[in-house]
């Protein structure tokens, strides 16, 4: 707990935009001839919310897979100054990066509590955290708001609860960086609202840096500090959202002329 305070304190001093937590350098991914990513480089600052958008097939999810160690790549990825580009997924998780998937996968033969328990058992890497695993779990369940459905089987959850569970599963590993892959897809406007609030709340509460892939531009514009647009595996624009959304090329390849707000 003390350490948590310390971390909070340290991060306060180095406010967003000063200290990069993740630096991706010249990442490329080739699927037998098909170039999913070409030379993508960017930096994510500590505590910011970093948005990624772009047409389907632009390589957004591949980028997450590469960062999370699911896919190999040519290029380097520095997380808190350490090159994690060759790490396997579980190791990346232990380094402090957690992710959610586009289609909310869960361990379907288990209930919600046991699902989150998997994260607590295997995701926590530091000794004092492991000893407090039960407490961390309860905190996360409370934070996400799953207390009432702890004993429900994962298969019978509705989409929103499934998304909450995957989020809890990611958070229980005590990450510093959270990767969210289209977390809002399939939710109703009301649920989107709730989920966005939850993401912001969680970010503040746990001192996280968040990278989020989304299609909903209005949400991204609202919550992101930085926005990056990918197209056909290449970065075409990065910067503050309002700048990016008025960028000519972004309008051309992604937003379309008519969709631009006056």
């Amino acid at each position, binding site marked *: 707990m003390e350490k948590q305070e310390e971390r909070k304190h340290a991060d306060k001093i180095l406010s967003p935009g000063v200290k990069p937590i993740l630096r991706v350098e010249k990442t490329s991914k080739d699927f037998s001839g098909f170039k999913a990513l070409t030379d993508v480089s960017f930096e994510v600052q500590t505590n910011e919310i970093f948005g990624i958008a772009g047409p389907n097939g632009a390589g957004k999810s591949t980028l997450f897979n590469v960062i*999370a160690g*699911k896919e190999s790549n040519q290029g380097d990825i520095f997380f808190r100054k350490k090159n994690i580009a060759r790490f*396997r*997924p*579980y*190791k990346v*998780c*232990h380094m402090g990066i*957690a*992710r959610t*998937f586009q289609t909310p*996968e*869960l*361990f*379907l*033969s*288990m*209930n919600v509590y*046991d699902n989150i*328990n*998997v*994260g607590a*058992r*295997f*995701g*926590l*890497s530091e000794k004092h955290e492991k000893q407090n695993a039960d407490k961390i779990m309860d905190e996360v369940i409370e934070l996400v708001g799953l207390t009432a459905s702890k004993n429900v089987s994962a298969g019978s959850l509705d989409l929103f609860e499934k998304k909450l569970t*995957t989020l809890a*599963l*990611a958070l*229980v*590993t005590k990450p510093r960086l959270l990767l969210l892959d289209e977390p809002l897809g399939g939710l109703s406007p009301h649920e989107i609202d709730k989920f966005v609030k939850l993401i912001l709340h969680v970010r503040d509460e746990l001192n996280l840096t968040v990278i989020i892939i989304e299609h909903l531009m209005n949400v991204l514009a609202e919550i992101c500090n930085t926005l990056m647009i990918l197209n056909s595996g290449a970065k075409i624009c990065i910067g503050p959202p309002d700048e990016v959304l008025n960028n000519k090329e972004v309008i051309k390849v992604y937003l379309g002329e008519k969709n631009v707000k006056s």
Partner: protein
Amino acid sequence: MKLSYKNTIIAFAVMLFLPLLIHDNSFLMHILIMSCLFSVLLVGWDLIMGYAGIFSFGQIAIFTIGAYSSAMLSKIVGLPPLISILVGSLIACGVGIIVALPSLRLAGIYVAMVTFLLHEALISMIRIGRVIGTGGATSITGIPPLSFLGYSFPSIERLPWYYVSLTLAFLSYFVFIRIINSSYGISFVALRDAEDLAKSVGVDDYRSKIIVFAMAALFAGLAGGFYAHYMRLVSVRILGLDNFILLLVMLIVGGLGKFPGVIVATFIFTILNEYMRPLEVFRPILLGVMVIVAIIYMPNGIGGIINFITTKFRRFKRIS
């Protein structure tokens, strides 16, 4: 989710007193001993195939390796049988790990192919190994009987052997339940249910898979060792197709990943198989028909039926 020890303990208690009724029936005793030994192998198979979801067809090959190692260690090297069983199981375990290594990156169907080929290649290897005392195409005979604290267990004496195999079987069930309820068990099931998700929350997939291969092999190796010293004869016939299918049927009809199911199926099918022996050529034909019918009409196996009944029963208790 968590498996309880309760039913297993009850079953153990019942089995302890079973000889009071049937100790005169040497044939039935023999079948029960075999059932116990096979169930150890099958519990390991259920661990890797049912709970970890890895299509391994090498379980009987590893059982055979355990049996041959233990037989050769005690007969040729002269180790005391208990020690040779132990060492034999460790060898089996090692083979399990060696098979696990290439399997880590393979898709399910290829794991099935590699392990199945291990089974087939082993037949030739044993024949080739004649020079080092595997008995070649025939068999190793005259394996020393199990002995413990100066008492030796000749296999003609069914009762002591019944208790030996019973103890072994139930010890392995308890170990199995412990594994399933432990972190390892959780990681196996997590990888089976959603591999990518499991890895992303910190499950080391390579480590888990190697461990599950090793554990399944350990069960098989132990069963093989005891089998060798009980039968006092091992031959390549263990690797025969009819044996392979019989054991696989026990696993599938028992229900993959539905724990007590596999044990119930082991006892049922071992007994059935022995009592069908007089049918000669019709036995495998009948067995084949039974397999097909059982699989088509009982897709979740006996374990599925047990689960169904127990949940019904619990609901019933809650209502009343």
